[in-house]
């Protein structure tokens, strides 16, 4: 029958929903402003203090990571976009009309993921490459710069976008599990901001053992061309982050299927 609900039709529906609310527009704009704008501010600050920076600071300087510094803030914007994509359906009650239209809950999640991941991947890549290019032009002439023609540099910038996409998916997965916007954003913030602080309070040997596995540290590993001591290299870091996200998503889908809407 030509009117059957398919993954394709569900994706079309979710795309209309995704782009027809203000929170998405605001979230995407915020992601650009934080990644590119705040990244530029960071780069200007580095440039203006470059001459007074010590030799060690100058020797360990990484123009790639620094120009992508805005992602540290943009990660919250994409996390909120992902969370709200599902929690707003619960807070308004619209989840019931959504599930009445697309009763296959697994397919609904896949449709939402297709829309969320492809949109935010595109946004995050534009933001990261924009931030990198703007940063290098700010550094140029004063501070050492990096070029995308170098393989590891290109990979780091690309993985910056991958990191933000993974985090929007994490926000979405937490939304499936928790169903409340506020609870979801609290947990998301705790994972990315509070967890590193807690780890920082632990003895040094524990810090060395655990810190590298935290989501925010994984992000730093992904966006650094040469891995510093006590952190994973980009490949394993990306993989581990994907495992975290996949675990949260699996839990979220299981709960969506079991619970009443």
């Amino acid at each position, binding site marked *: 029958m*030509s009117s059957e609900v398919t993954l394709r039709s569900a994706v079309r529906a979710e795309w209309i929903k995704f782009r027809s609310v203000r929170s998405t527009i605001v979230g995407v704009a915020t992601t650009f402003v934080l990644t590119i704008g705040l990244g530029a501010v960071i780069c200007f600050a580095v440039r203006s203090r470059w001459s007074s920076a010590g030799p060690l600071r100058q020797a360990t300087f990484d123009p790639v990571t620094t120009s992508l510094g805005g992602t540290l803030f943009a990660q919250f914007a994409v996390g909120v976009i992902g969370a709200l994509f599902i929690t707003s359906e619960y807070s308004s009650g619209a989840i019931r009309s959504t599930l009445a239209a697309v009763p296959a809950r697994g397919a609904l999640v896949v449709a939402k993921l297709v829309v969320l991941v492809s949109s935010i991947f595109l946004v995050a890549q534009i933001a990261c490459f924009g931030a990198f290019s703007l940063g290098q032009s700010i550094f140029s002439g004063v501070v050492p710069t990096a070029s995308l023609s170098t393989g590891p540099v290109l990979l780091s910038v690309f993985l910056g976008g991958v990191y933000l996409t993974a985090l929007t998916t994490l926000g979405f997965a937490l939304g499936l599990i928790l169903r409340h916007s506020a609870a979801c954003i609290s947990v998301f913030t705790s994972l990315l901001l509070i967890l590193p602080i807690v780890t920082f309070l632990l003895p040094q040997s524990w810090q060395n053992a655990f810190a590298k596995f935290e989501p925010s540290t994984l992000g730093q590993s992904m966006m650094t061309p040469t891995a510093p001591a006590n952190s994973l290299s980009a490949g394993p870091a990306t993989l581990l982050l994907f495992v975290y996200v996949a675990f949260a998503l699996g839990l979220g889908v299981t709960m969506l299927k079991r619970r*009443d809407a």
Partner: protein
Amino acid sequence: MIKVEHLSKRYRKTLAVDDLEFEVRPGVVTGFLGPNGSGKSTTMRIILGLDHPTSGRATIKGQKYGEIADPLHVVGALLDAKAVHPGRSARSHLRALAASNRIAFRRVDDVLEFVGISAVADKRVGEYSLGMSQRLGIAAALLGDPEVLLFDEPVNGLDPEGIRWIRELFRSLASEGRTVFVSSHLMSEMAVSADQIVVIGRGRFITQGSLESLTANAQGFVYVRSGDPAQLLRALVARGAVASPVNDGALSVSGLTTDDVGRIAFASGVTLFELTPQRASLEEVFMELTADSVEYGSPGRPGE
């Protein structure tokens, strides 16, 4: 069309729906009546596959909701009119629903026109009055031109003109051969809008039938005003009637006909001033039916 079989739903300790069983036929408006909290909404959510039943099942045209390949073309539902993202326009909301079930966008414009909210279709739904939201909810239910329609308390928040409009809509949908299932906690609403009524209380099936059959089977009572109510009361009770004093010294008697009451009064030498049979109103039938269900479920009943 809609078939509910041995349906039960338990939320932690409360049994919201208790072994419910009934059928809703096409071509008539079927009212789903019960006091607030009697399990109407839960039953409707289970029919729509939103809540999982603890046991039993609900089917539409023999299929569980989740098995229907094109659900909006078969079933349209209005559960909660305010359950739309407040920041989205009515048109976007309907277009998303339409897209999911491959309904042409032209149909979105048609239903918006039909329910009379075309002029505000591009406004954010959060700015809508409850009446406008109800109309949007009805537009969503009609979107796929479905054979089966479910409405949960649809008249809430509507102005009198809206209420009349919605009653006529139900009638015309039913006359087109569709199955129309409408819940309400108001008997008076059912009396004017439904042909068939399913009554539940405390999650249990109480009765099902046409309006006429429900009132016909209900117990009427006899209003009797006499010269010596106390004497008459004793005589009536002695004959096994249930009688109780009402105002102005009259008695309300159930379980006996006017003829019986007249004979008993004559036999006990009481003068009658007035003897009137009272047919139970729909409201009273409802109260009587659901009061039984409340009594049935209340704890500490003697003999339990």
